[in-house]
């Protein structure tokens, strides 16, 4: 039986300018991932596709197999759990290889939200249509994701007594990591004054509290761990996996915007990996907005409710901190490639390829993806050690 591992990683350059179609970018990422894994296209027998949700004319789908020169496949799926998809694809691929349904599976995400004549903000603001609840919300001025997560932030700060200083600390932490990441699109050091003077988008979220959309793509290859060694990489094993889909209701009395007890799902993934939170060397979270990092640290059981801001302000998340988090700069400072952003950084750190941002001796990573309004979670525990 094949012992599946992450054996290849491919990232395109991350562009903050219009250009490149999502499908072409996705295929470039696939090419780079296969080259990294020293695996031929004709050896690939599984393809999982993750595309940006919403109304996108160029949304990548299963046609990628036909357009991308793939041969006969034993596994082909368009996986969709919104932002949780990348981690979920890895789970799907590992299970398929273990079950003998495929031997070498490519998982890919590509997106091109920046278009000529409009900002990515416009792309998101124009998405969503007029139907159903989303139509009602958009008619109320709730366009794109920023006001939505601003409401979440409003509620979170009101409930925890937190402040914008907490958000600023998260942003500055990711920027400190991004300074040392050549692939990050925002690498200049950031002071609190820089943060405070950045443009307000939707209170309390400033432009620096929001992920940086890019046109780009990322792909990973899951296959026989021995192939990684042959290609000159340490294999990165997927030792733990879980999902959690909290059903927070938009009715009183519970909280609607965050929480929902994902901690036990983190416990489950760690238990499968025979690891504990104390073993996690790098924590790679999905951080589309600064406030989300705070919510997730609490929800995932890394601190008590309302304590994440203090953790961030104390520098725990940044370089040299006790809980290195989003060590490539995350979606906030590096690039917003949805679930690929945390997944790719987990692999880079465990391979020891982090360069100036490398966390010394990193051997265990928790990679987490979220989808929707923190409605979906998918976790993978990555480890350099085989089971």
């Amino acid at each position, binding site marked *: 039986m094949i012992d599946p591992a992450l054996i290849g990683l491919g990232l395109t350059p991350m562009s903050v300018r219009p250009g490149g179609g999502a499908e072409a970018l996705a295929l470039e990422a696939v090419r780079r991932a296969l080259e990294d894994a020293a695996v031929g296209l004709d050896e690939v027998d599984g393809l999982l596709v993750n595309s940006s949700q919403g109304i996108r004319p160029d949304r990548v789908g299963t046609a990628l197999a036909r357009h991308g020169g793939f041969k006969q496949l034993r596994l082909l799926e368009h996986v969709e759990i919104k932002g949780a998809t990348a981690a979920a694809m890895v789970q799907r691929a590992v299970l398929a290889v273990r079950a003998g349904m495929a031997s070498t599976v490519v998982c890919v995400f590509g997106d091109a939200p920046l278009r000529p004549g409009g900002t990515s*903000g416009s792309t998101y603001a124009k998405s969503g249509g*007029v*139907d*159903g609840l989303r139509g009602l919300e*958009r008619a109320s001025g709730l366009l794109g994701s920023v006001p939505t997560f601003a*409401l*979440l932030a409003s509620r979170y700060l009101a409930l925890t007594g937190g402040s914008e200083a907490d958000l600023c600390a998260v942003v500055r932490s990711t920027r400190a990591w991004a300074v040392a990441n050549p692939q990050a699109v925002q690498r200049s050091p950031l002071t609190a004054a820089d943060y405070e003077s950045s443009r307000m988008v939707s209170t309390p979220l400033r432009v620096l509290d929001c992920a940086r959309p890019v046109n780009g793509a990322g792909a990973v290859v899951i296959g026989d761990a021995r192939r990684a060694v042959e290609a000159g990489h340490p294999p990165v094993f997927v030792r733990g996996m879980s999902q959690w889909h909290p059903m927070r209701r938009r009715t*009183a009395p519970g909280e*609607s915007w965050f929480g929902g007890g994902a901690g036990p799902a983190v416990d489950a993934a760690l238990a499968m990996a025979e690891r504990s939170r104390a073993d996690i060397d790098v924590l790679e979270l999905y951080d589309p907005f600064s406030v989300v990092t705070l919510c997730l640290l609490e929800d995932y059981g890394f601190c008590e409710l309302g304590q994440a801001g203090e953790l961030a302000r104390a520098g725990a998340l940044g370089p040299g901190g006790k809980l290195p988090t989003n060590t490539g700069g995350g979606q906030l400072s590096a690039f917003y490639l949805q679930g690929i952003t945390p997944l790719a950084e987990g692999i880079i750190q465990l391979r020891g390829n982090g360069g100036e941002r490398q966390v010394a001796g990193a051997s265990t990573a928790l990679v987490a993806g979220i989808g929707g309004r923190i409605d979906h979670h998918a976790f993978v525990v990555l480890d350099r050690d085989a089971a």
Partner: protein
Amino acid sequence: MRGSVTRAQATTDWLVVDSLAPATAGALEPMYDAAAAGRLQMPFCASCRIALELEQLVCDRCGSGGPQWQEVEPRGTVHAVTTVHRHEPSLIRAREPYSILDVELESGHRIIMTTTAPVGGYAVGDAVAVTFRTVGDVAIPAVSATPPVWAHDLPVQPGDDSAESTTKEHR
């Protein structure tokens, strides 16, 4: 040119363009029908009576199907609030920052809405009254820009009882 007769009665919304008028057909149709008559209706479980989400079809407490829409008190408190500074050029008419509120109705439903006129300065926990604004020819719930009379905690300006005296300014 659908609905040209009713559209003749439509007024121009202060915040968004007509093309953002929501499609009224579907799960939210009872709410839109009631709103057109000036009444606020929300869905409840027909069996155990708990408040349901607007698009919820099966009760998460008792498992019964079939939401029942009924009239609720048009008032609540601010559960969350944001002031939006970004204005998407082709969709937003307003030039100033605008409020979006997540209002927890007394019925327990939480509904995202804006205000009937450009008003800001809301905080979590504020009491608000719900009325309607019209986008295209569709009436949708909105927070009344006039402060509610039961908000006893609002400061009273001596000698001035007009609505403007307690209209809040943008932060």
